[in-house]
């Protein structure tokens, strides 16, 4: 085996196990790997440059802004009103809040195009609320993390745009439409997991509300619900981009909490800004060091070598198809989504096409695989944000996440073997002609 990959895997695993912060472990193992083929000074300079470069992206601004708006919503009374409203609607069912969580995360992920943003915005008020209502803390974080990734399949989605580029020309419009059914399918399966959990764990059942309560809670929730309409409406009307929408969410949440509800004083703003900055930075340092890691992986041609070796194992198309998916799942476990799409699309797409898959179908399969990866350690930005907002550990999230992985993989298998799930809508709307 290539010495550089051995150094990478061994040093990373060792540092991680003894309890070194994940971001530092990624950085150190990247540097050690780089030193195999690059001199010390260019190696440290390159690592520093990749760390800085990894953060030099406008789309990442959604992270601090949605984290900040999430904190404002949580402390400013918006979240409470939304949850009260959701409770009178479906709180009387077992596990009602869990369903509310899945729906909110899907909706938020859908409009923001960012799973990290959905986890931080919805998670930072839904998770504490669910905790208070007697739901299991780790389950709450896990369901937030898993359901946030569905928004990457539902348009708008920057990752689908990146796939379109990497694939050398699959229509973005077609990809956007293709993502709807798989995204909603994944959300539906996650809700089934919630329903089963609710029965087994005897999640709290709210009282059946009287009509007066329903009316009152709905009325109170209108300004908070308006946030969603302002954000979606603004994007659709072309007033701001999906990333800029995050700052509008900050503005509106700030306006409600400071001026309308007066549940936050102006003096509370500074600690909120610092808290948001700190939570943001935890994620950003991970993105910075994983950018450096994926750089050295590509530089050493490790992804290409690995997939070549794995694909040489057999001639059976079904086995190759499953192997591709296993490769993608493993990639998602260790890599961030954007570099993974850019590196592996040119490698795996030709293989998939030789098996008769359309580039459209393969793209959706790839993103679904990587969505699962976003929720797995050791490198999973959505998981990290989920742990961070829920104040819980990665280790304790694994158990509640297991059935959710299963649900997501089940949705993935359906999408793999029923091409119509991703291809019907684009063909129906005339956006895609099957090759």
């Amino acid at each position, binding site marked *: 085996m290539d010495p550089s990959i051995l150094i990478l895997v061994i040093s990373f695993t060792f540092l991680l196990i003894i309890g070194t912060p994940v971001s530092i472990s990624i950085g150190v193992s990247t540097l050690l790997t780089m030193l195999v083929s*690059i*001199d010390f000074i260019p190696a440290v300079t*390159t690592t520093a440059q990749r760390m800085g470069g990894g953060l030099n992206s406008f789309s990442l601004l959604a992270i601090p802004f949605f984290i900040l708006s999430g904190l404002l919503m949580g402390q400013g009374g918006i979240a409470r009103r939304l949850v009260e409203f959701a409770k009178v609607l479906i709180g009387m069912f077992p596990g009602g809040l869990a369903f509310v969580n899945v729906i909110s995360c899907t909706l938020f992920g859908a409009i923001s195009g960012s799973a990290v943003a959905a986890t931080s915005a919805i998670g930072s008020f839904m998770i504490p609320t669910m905790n208070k209502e007697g739901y299991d803390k780790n389950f709450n974080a896990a369901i937030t993390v898993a359901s946030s990734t569905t928004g990457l399949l539902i348009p708008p989605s920057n990752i689908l*745009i990146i796939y*379109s580029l990497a694939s050398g020309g699959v229509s973005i419009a077609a990809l956007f439409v293709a993502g709807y059914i798989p995204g909603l399918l994944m959300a539906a399966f996650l809700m089934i997991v919630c329903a089963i959990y609710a029965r087994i764990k005897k999640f709290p059942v709210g009282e059946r509300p009287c009509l007066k309560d329903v009316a009152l809670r709905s009325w109170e929730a209108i300004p908070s619900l308006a946030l969603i309409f302002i954000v979606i409406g603004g994007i659709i*009307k072309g007033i701001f981009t999906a990333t800029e929408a995050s700052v509008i969410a900050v503005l509106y949440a700030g306006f409600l909490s400071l001026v309308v509800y007066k549940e936050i004083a102006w003096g509370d703003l500074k600690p909120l800004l610092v808290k948001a900055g700190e939570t943001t930075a935890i994620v950003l340092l991970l993105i910075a060091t994983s950018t450096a890691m994926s750089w050295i992986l590509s530089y050493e041609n490790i992804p290409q070598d690995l997939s070549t070796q794995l694909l040489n194992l057999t001639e059976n198309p079904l086995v190759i198809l499953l192997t591709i998916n296993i490769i993608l799942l493993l990639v998602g476990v260790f890599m961030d989504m954007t570099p993974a799409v850019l590196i592996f699309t040119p490698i795996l797409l030709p293989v998939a096409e030789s098996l008769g898959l359309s580039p459209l179908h393969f793209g959706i399969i790839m993103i679904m695989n990587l969505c699962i990866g976003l929720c797995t350690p050791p490198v999973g930005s959505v998981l990290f944000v989920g742990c961070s907002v829920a104040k819980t550990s990665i280790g304790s999230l694994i158990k509640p996440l297991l059935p959710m992985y299963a649900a997501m993989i089940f949705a993935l298998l359906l999408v793999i073997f029923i091409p119509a799930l991703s291809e019907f809508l684009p063909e129906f709307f005339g956006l895609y002609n099957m090759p």
Partner: protein
Amino acid sequence: QKNDRQQTLKLAHTLNIDHPVHKALIYMAERLKEKSYGAMAIDIYPSGQLGGERELIELLQIGSLAMTKVSSSPLEEFIDEMKVFSTPYLFEDNDHFWRTLNGDVGRHILLSGESVFLRGLGFYDAGSRSFYSVNKPIHTPDDLAGLKIRVQQSQSAIQMVNTLGGSATPIAWGELYTALQQGVVDGAENNPPSFWSSKHFEVAKYYTLDEHTMVPDIILISQYTWDHLNPQQQGWLQSAMDESVVYQRKLWAEATEEALEAVAAAGVEIIRPNKAPYQQKVQSAAASAAQNQPQINKDIINKIKLLRK
């Protein structure tokens, strides 16, 4: 096949593997291998896997990457001379453009980055940039008034679009498709193959071939790497480069043709405007744009104008 004496140069760029540039780079690598009897090789990293264009230039300066292909526009941040290319209607036509690049002026520009460790090996064709718009066709410069046109983050690009009468709007490239779709901006500008491969034609249904700027691509080598090669190796590399330039121009012409046919087939109205009003519009403004250029660039611009027929 790799032996210890083999000199392998790592080259990274941001385009996909179907792009004429990538094919021409592969051709260059093959030619180099043949010329050097296998003593030299080029490893190509496409699709931005080692970073964006600005970052790849920095890696050449750091010394961890040997070569890259970048547009001359991000190079403006590193080398003043590159700002020359953002002057609208500087070149009369394709012929004038290539006469300039293949002559002394082109040679001077290629070597102008030596002091910042960046050595240009040759120019690739990146065609002419033209406007495309979503709702309103652009026939004359007056049609640009009030239209928000997306530009790259650069002073000269902003100045160029404002000069022509549009309202220059910097938008991150990755957000441009949805920005066009949702009306955050009314249009953008690029060459035909990029208009096609970015899929922006799905949203923008009018393409006005006003061909306001000709911004070449440049193949750069790190000065460290270049100095490390012996004269014979430098010679092999340069002649492989020169052969690939000819090949790439042919591929580019084909790609442009195909892209225009493809977008037209997809329902885009291709407008071939009278360029005179556009040229008049920038005449005074171009002079003032040249005023903002460093003295050295004014000299280059004058030399380029002298090469007009």
